[in-house]
């Protein structure tokens, strides 16, 4: 009896991409269901009534939402090629850094991209502080997971792909190779790893998408009064 594994995703969601990477790394067969987030399917709304978002993993008919939750589920259900370390303290560190990546790194870099003027300046400062912590964490390691890609690498993976796109669109350096040499080389190593390289959304399509998001943000901020 085969296992039925379905992944609800969109073509560009970096959160869904985490799950693609995890499934591919573990060699798990799955069916991808691409959602148009401007026109969500009834199935998506049924499987994730609380957040109505992707990714959703459906395993033998049972849905799981929230990318961190899905990653941990995948790691517990399919034991090959573990994403999290075995030692409880190392696992705690991985969970800590993953949370830091979403709560702090992602939000500050997003702000640095989407905001203007003083808000952008402040976001860049916050982003640099956050990146410094990651740079420190990388000492002596090729990946955050050690010798091979692990949980934190997968969670932070969007950095390896999206940052250069953001930098190109706004004409600003966010991850400076001189200031963050370890992080910079991690971004190269991660992006070039076969599974990652073969599973990234098309760059030109991403540039169009994020340019449009930025244009919309600028338009709405200049039309609203403060």
């Amino acid at each position, binding site marked *: 009896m085969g296992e039925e594994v379905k992944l609800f995703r969109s073509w560009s969601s970096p959160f869904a991409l985490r799950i693609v990477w995890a499934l591919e790394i573990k060699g798990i067969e799955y069916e991808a269901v691409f959602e148009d987030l401007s026109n969500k399917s009834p199935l998506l709304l049924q499987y994730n009534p609380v957040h109505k978002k992707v990714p959703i993993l459906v395993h033998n008919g049972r849905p799981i939402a929230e990318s961190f939750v899905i990653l941990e*589920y995948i790691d517990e259900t399919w034991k090959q090629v573990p994403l999290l370390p075995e030692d409880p303290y190392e696992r*705690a560190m991985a969970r800590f850094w993953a949370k830091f990546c979403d709560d702090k790194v992602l939000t500050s870099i997003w702000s640095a991209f989407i905001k203007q003027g003083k808000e952008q300046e402040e976001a860049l400062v916050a982003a640099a502080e956050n990146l410094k912590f990651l740079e420190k964490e990388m000492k002596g390691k090729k990946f955050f997971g050690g010798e091979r890609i692990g949980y934190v690498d997968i969670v932070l993976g969007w950095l390896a792909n999206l940052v250069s796109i953001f930098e190109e669109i706004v004409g600003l350096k966010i991850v400076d190779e001189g200031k963050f040499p370890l992080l910079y080389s991690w971004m190269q190593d991660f992006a070039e790893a076969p599974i990652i390289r073969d599973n990234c959304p098309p760059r030109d399509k991403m540039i169009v998408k994020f340019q449009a998001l930025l244009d919309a943000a600028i338009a709405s901020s200049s039309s609203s009064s403060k």
Partner: protein
Amino acid sequence: MGEEVKLFRTWSSPFALRIVWALRIKAIEYETVFEDISNKSPSLLQCNPVHGKVPVLLHNGRPIAESLVILEYIDEAWKQAPLLPVDPHERAMARFWAKFGDDKVLGSIWSVFIKQGKEQEEAMVPAMENLKFLEEELKGKKFFGGDTIGFVDLALGWLANLIGLLEEIVGLKVVDGEKLPLLSAWMQEFGDAPIIKDNWPARDRMILKFQALRDATIAAASK
């Protein structure tokens, strides 16, 4: 050789309280270090350089920060009285609801608390939607963890104490026993459970603290 377990907390932090409960439920001996957040100790800043916050658990000299990370660590390091279920799908559900509590419920309730008038009315809408999801999740269960207190109960436990306090301060009913009967009942059950009941921070001190927080937030917003 004894294990050294230290918990950095404050008298009122609901996040640190989660760890107090977990340690008590598992009957783990530990030393408490009370921090004054306006005057953080060098130890705290050394143990949690990234956030500088409580709670921090120190186990045999190694620090762990972020309450849900600490709860998972405690559950993995001490196997008695498990907080998370065994089945991977149920574990995923528990993690989902704990995250929902922190990402959505907490913020939406806080918005209701710090706002006034029309803004407060509007803030009630997402807060009630979120609480309704929790109500649904309690169907057929005494606790979110089932028959016994578990991971999600600890993550949401702040509701059982803070809601009543906030309702008193703003004079608004947020968890109505008629509209949210299961959640109401859970708040009683959880709040009265022996380990939980004995560890609530002093009520009058909490009222003063949150009244002051509300006043300061409203004052800052009107500038």
